[in-house]
């Protein structure tokens, strides 16, 4: 397991959502919470540090939630992707699940307990994926060294 404090990235153009969720998560979890009301800044965060869970609103200026999560998938494929949206129609849900390999689709008004469970599972999933990636790459190293030693 990763020893670093897990990080949750919240993106919503409404500051109130970020403030509320940040306060709740800080109360309930040891997670580091990063909030962005701006999608461009969220992408900067994704490029600059490891993130375990990305939770994005759907309807935002500049970029919608699916586009943002798609970018997140390219930058940090291990990060768990969650869409938190008041604009819940089946089409956008299906699109999100297919295009960005969405982990969960949570509707506003959300239920704190449910969201917390989704986030906790999401963090665990991201950390396991990272561990897997690390051990796979060290396995590849070992294999490469073995092959070199024999040849």
């Amino acid at each position, binding site marked *: 397991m990763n020893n670093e404090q897990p990080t949750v990235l919240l993106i919503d153009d*409404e500051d*109130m*959502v970020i*403030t*509320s*969720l940040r*306060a*709740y998560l800080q*109360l309930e979890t040891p997670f580091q919470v990063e909030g962005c009301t701006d999608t461009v800044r969220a992408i900067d965060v994704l490029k600059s540090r490891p993130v375990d869970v990305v939770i994005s609103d759907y309807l935002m200026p500049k970029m919608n939630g699916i586009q943002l999560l798609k970018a997140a998938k390219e930058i940090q494929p291990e990060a768990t992707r969650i869409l938190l949206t*008041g*604009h*819940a*129609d*089946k089409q956008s849900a299906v699109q999100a699940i297919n295009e960005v390999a969405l982990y969960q689709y949570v*509707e*506003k*008004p*959300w*239920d*704190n307990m449910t969201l917390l469970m989704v986030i906790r599972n999401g963090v665990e999933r991201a950390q396991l994926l990272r561990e897997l990636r690390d051990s796979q790459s060290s396995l590849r190293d070992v294999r490469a060294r073995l092959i070199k030693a024999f040849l």
Partner: protein
Amino acid sequence: MTHPDGGENSELHRLASLGRTLAGLVHEIGTPVASLASNNEVLLRGLDSLAAADLPADIRRKVETLRDLASVDRLACERLTTLVRGVKRLARGASAELVAADVNELLRDSLQLAHHEFKLRITVETDLGELAPVMCAPHSLGQVFLNLLVNAAQAIEGQGRITVRTRPAPAGIDVWISDTGRGIGPADREKVFSSGFTTKPPGAGAGLGLAICKEIIARHGGQIDFESSPGAGATFHIRIPTGHSSGGAGE
């Protein structure tokens, strides 16, 4: 009451655009409500831990008052949340797309939404049997139930009772919505389902409700009828097949 040329259509348009406005409004309300509910949880938790601490009496009283207020806010948030979720479920896929839905759940949502018509004067009794999911346009069916419930409430002067009952039927389901209201007179029986018929005062309804209900139920391959005697209330009965397969059951 007859409508001038195109009157019925323009009334439908007006209702449709009102529906869209309402759905948009509810989407807008979802976010602040969730935010309030979340903050309320954090506040309550904080006040709980303060109340557990050793405090001077006057401060303790204040903390307790604040805690009481926060508890009231929690109930208020829960009610708003339920309401928003109910409207969203009913508005979901205002498309004609058929999905498997739990009719009991649709009835509960409609009851919740019709609540403002009931206030304290009407008692609601539900007797919901175990039902198989029904292939339907949930939004449209919800509209039918809401319509029947609001009609039932408006038929009751003063105190009364509305009873909602569901039962499985062969290859379908039965729904009964009964009221203890003024009932439907023999002269009106034939006209109840025709568009433009209303006994309500101007402004209370355009008389399209039951005509649209009948249309929606027919598109689901079902039937709607009623029994009533003047002064003794009315019971509307709907039967819908569970596996209706032809498309276009919606608007």
